[in-house]
């Protein structure tokens, strides 16, 4: 086939245009999908195109996207599920490597023109081009976040990126899974030229080809890949990575570092190591679990896509820790927020915390100021009338809440959502005072609001489905995962955590040290041990939650907890609980090197939680096992690589059975 025929050929996923200069423009447009992925079918067609360009050299070859959502999100992770053997994966990956090498070897100038998401395989494809241009719009994100899926870049990315920008920057990017904005990607040396908001990718690409532009390669970057520097840098990388992930749970980043140390001096060997390692990682339980969680997180978001909302104004009543932080978070997400409490002095601490959050997240002074202007103290409650969402986060007293609802309901816009952040009082009891009880839903945030990605959207018996859908859509809008739960004691997350902490307190009563208990949980893969978690949540809150769940502690544990609370030891917030807290961290002595049955201990902690999750599912608190797993992972940090509690339990049962039958 000649180039002239290429534009007549109909591809399913590529739109090919040839201009008068004989530049071939390939627009990626994955059929039937909103976002581009490098599915096998996409790559198969790319192979056809490349074969033509190998036979007849064009003036230039440009890869772009025809979709508004971006360049390409990476491989289609659904396709990985089909493989159970590393060898099968290795074969596929090797094929991809060969194709990408052919693209890189094309004699004409090749350009990747990027706008929107260019992640994972998408960036690996772009890295094969001679020149990369990126549009500096707010939506552009460039990165290799594969470690989040328990693997590392497998289409030549680890070899090409380290070669291009050097080991330090490349490894940092891959290990952190960061997604860079266009100007930062330019600073990193990944992107060769930025295209301004008012300029066009098309004409910039054309100019780059006609002027035969080449990116600058830094000599320093090359030095970082030398045999002398690699082991030194790796030592640092290993240390930093170990702070964030345990090797036993998340092997991929460590394998990546090892491979770079061993092979970083040679592109070919680094690429071969990639094929070998990524294929093994791909079929591991960890990668499977993480892919499941990723898929489920998409499912959580789906709950918020049933209706579209455009919430502009949020009014939060109650400027305590939760109310204040919810208000700050909504503000950070671009909303106009009013924060109400009885007196200004109760609101001021929340505003100060908000300022800290804005400074940390927004960095630029004018953005911080703009955010502070969006968050207004509102003692008189003037914001109620204009708000699209009103969130009540006052103390847990049903009478006071009802009285409040009665005063604000007549003032609210007719279609505004009324939500309570209560974690203890059934919605049905609170809704009785409303003229329109069906409008009340729960939006249960977790502490610390800025870090916890989940919000429980609580459906009382009286809550109307459309309001629930809009509540979930609001969560999407503020970049939280919604999970719709039935109004029942503890909802999902607290209900699941209570037996976990209870088990820990019971074990502690038997004389086991709190450090050992927490370590067992960490070894299992929890982000924090149960005793430390109790301190962070606050012992008074823990007690309250357990009482709500009428899940009584044994008498001794109950007495100990009450005694600590009455003597003012409330946990992290008071500076002392089970642990001493210094500058936000628990003081932990080294654990003596005694032998422990860590697995058995972890099972004692985890099993009650698993049982509760199953019970919650059986009772229909959450509609679906997958959603429940995702909710527990994002709500409690439950070891994500397990794929969630129910999945984990099922796997363990299966493993045991297969073990027995063997």
């Amino acid at each position, binding site marked *: 086939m000649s180039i002239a025929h290429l534009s007549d050929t109909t591809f399913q996923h590529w739109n090919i245009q040839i201009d008068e200069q004989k530049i071939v423009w390939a627009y990626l447009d994955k059929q039937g999908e909103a976002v581009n992925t490098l599915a096998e079918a996409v790559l198969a067609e790319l192979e056809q195109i490349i074969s033509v360009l190998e036979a007849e050299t064009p003036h230039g070859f440009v890869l772009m996207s025809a979709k508004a959502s971006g360049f390409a999100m990476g491989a289609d992770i659904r396709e990985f599920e089909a493989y159970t053997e590393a060898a099968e994966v290795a074969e596929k990956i090797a094929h991809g490597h060969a194709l990408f090498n052919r693209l890189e070897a094309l004699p004409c100038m090749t350009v990747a023109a990027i706008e929107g998401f260019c992640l994972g395989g998408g960036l690996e494809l772009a890295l094969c081009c001679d020149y990369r241009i990126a549009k500096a719009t707010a939506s552009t994100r460039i990165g290799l976040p594969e470690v989040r899926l328990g693997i590392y870049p497998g289409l030549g990315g680890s070899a090409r990126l380290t070669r291009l920008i050097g080991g330090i920057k490349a490894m940092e990017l891959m290990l952190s899974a960061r997604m860079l904005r266009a100007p930062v990607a330019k600073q990193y040396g990944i992107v060769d030229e930025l295209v301004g*908001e*008012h300029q066009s990718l098309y004409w910039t690409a054309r100019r780059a080809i006609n002027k035969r532009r080449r990116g600058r390669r830094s000599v320093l970057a090359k030095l970082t890949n030398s045999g002398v520097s690699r082991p030194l840098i790796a030592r640092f990388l290993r240390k930093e990575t170990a702070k964030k992930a345990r090797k036993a749970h998340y092997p991929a980043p460590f394998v990546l570092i090892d491979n770079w140390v061993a092979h970083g001096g040679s592109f070919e060997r680094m690429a071969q190591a990639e094929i070998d390692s990524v294929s093994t990682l791909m079929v591991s339980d960890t990668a499977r679990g993480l892919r499941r969680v990723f898929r489920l997180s998409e499912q959580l978001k789906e709950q918020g896509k049933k209706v579209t909302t455009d919430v*502009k104004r949020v009014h939060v009543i109650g400027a305590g820790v939760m109310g204040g932080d919810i208000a700050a978070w909504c503000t950070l997400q*671009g909303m*106009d927020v009013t924060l109400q409490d009885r007196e200004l002095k109760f609101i001021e601490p929340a505003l100060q915390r908000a300022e800290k959050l804005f400074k940390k997240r*927004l960095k630029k002074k*004018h*953005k911080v*100021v*703009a*955010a502070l*202007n*969006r968050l*207004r103290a509102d003692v008189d409650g*003037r914001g109620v*009338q*204009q708000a699209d969402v009103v969130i009540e986060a006052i103390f847990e007293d049903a009478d006071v809440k009802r009285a409040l609802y009665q005063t604000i309901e007549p003032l609210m816009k007719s279609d505004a959502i009324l939500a309570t952040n209560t974690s203890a009082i059934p919605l049905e009891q609170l809704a009785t005072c409303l003229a329109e009880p069906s409008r009340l839903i729960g939006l249960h945030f977790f502490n610390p609001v800025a870090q916890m990605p989940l919000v429980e959207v609580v459906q009382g018996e009286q809550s109307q489905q459309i309001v629930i859908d809009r509540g979930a859509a609001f969560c999407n809008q503020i970049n939280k995962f919604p999970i719709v739960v039935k109004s029942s004691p503890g909802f999902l997350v607290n209900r699941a955590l209570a037996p976990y902490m209870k088990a820990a307190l019971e074990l502690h009563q038997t004389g086991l040290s709190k450090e050992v208990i927490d370590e067992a949980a960490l070894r299992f893969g929890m982000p924090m041990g149960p005793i430390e978690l109790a301190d962070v949540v606050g012992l008074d809150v823990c007690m309250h939650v357990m009482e709500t769940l009428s899940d009584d502690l044994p008498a001794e544990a109950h007495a100990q907890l009450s005694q600590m609370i009455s003597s003012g030891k409330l946990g992290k917030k008071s500076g002392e609980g089970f642990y001493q807290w210094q500058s936000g961290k628990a003081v932990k002595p080294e654990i003596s090197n005694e032998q422990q049955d860590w697995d058995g201990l972890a099972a004692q902690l985890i099993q009650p939680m698993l049982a509760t999750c199953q019970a919650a599912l059986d009772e229909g608190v959450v509609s679906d096992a997958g959603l429940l797993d995702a909710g527990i992972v994002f709500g409690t940090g439950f070891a994500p690589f397990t794929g969630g509690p129910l999945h984990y339990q099922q796997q363990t049962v299966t493993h045991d059975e297969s073990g027995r039958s063997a």
Partner: protein
Amino acid sequence: MNAVKQIRPVCIVGGARIPFCRSNTAYSELSNLDMLARSLQGLSARFDLKGQKIDEVIAGAVVTHSRDWNLAREAVLSTDLSPLTPGITLQQACGTSLQSALLSAAKIASGQIECAIAGGSDTTSDAPIVLSDRLRKRLLTLNKARHWKQKLSAFKGFSLRELAPQPPSVAEPRTHLGMGDHCELMAKEWGITREEQDQLALASHQKLLSAYEEGFLDEMIVACEGVVRDNNLRADISLETLSALKPSFDRSATGTLTAGNSTPLTDGSAAVLLASEAWAKERGLPIQAYLTHYETSAVDFVAGDGLLMAPTVAVSNMLNRAGLSLQSFDYYEIHEAFAAQVLCTLKAWDDDAYCRKYLQRDVPMGLIDHEKLNVKGSSLATGHPFAATGARVLSNLSTLLATTQGERGLISVCTAGGMGVSAILET
């Protein structure tokens, strides 16, 4: 000859603008092109104009870079409006976007076009800084020079002083006085007190604040850079804080203009959609008001007339033509470049001698009901990005008429160079 058959009504469909921000604050990194494009895009989103060809977009900026020579067209290309939409860049100082609307209105009335967008943008944060005239001429000579001898001669008599960059100035080129200095002169001539000015400024902030709180601006405002309200608006302003400010122009005890009762340098943009009735109805778009009369005028400020008094003339002539009295309006939108400017204008209309001499009226035009003046706040509170103000005022008044069943509103905008632009909206 195929003459124009009849004059058609001109509809104001509505406007959109980004919140205005004091200079060197939230928009310090934005250019006029960035800002104008965002208001146009906001308008497109508000009225679902994606992919639609608008017959013309007329817009401009006062403080502008030479690179923005095709500002209106470039801004169109950065929106989802059809790229077949022509853009015309136009400038009449602070009257820019109002004048843009008037030009398009005339074309709609005469049937030349069916729809148009008028807009404006200004930034003093991204102001151009230019080379001195001498250096610039040397560089141009150098560019034309062919041999080294000519090149060398381009730098004959060069002095280091020429390297000093020339910042833009908002002073009047012919008087070398700033706008505030001129207005201070007017305040003295008309005996406008500091208290009156501060009172007007206070009212402007209070009225804008309640406009925001009651949601009056919701449809018009397009959030930009995380800003959702004009950041010049002070919710906590009081007469005490205003009266504590020192005079800004005449710094002696006789000065009355302060930073509180004058508009600050402001960044921002605004746009408004105009259309024939048929075009608007075809698309199911609202008709907020009709633009029925308009007038532009100038005064001989170089000979000593008050620089910002031209709107008195424009309004007077326009009312004569329309056969209306100054009192026949539900609302007055008198752009508050300075509180003193508004107060001088109102006083002049009620002044027998002034009306005789400058407006050729035997009887003064009289007073207006202050309750009807700038009821949703004006430039003292929103700030005043020169070229954007006209479009802001237009969409403010048309929204006001549409939401209150008002019948008629008056617009008056003063501009640099001793000019004034006025208009009447009716429902």
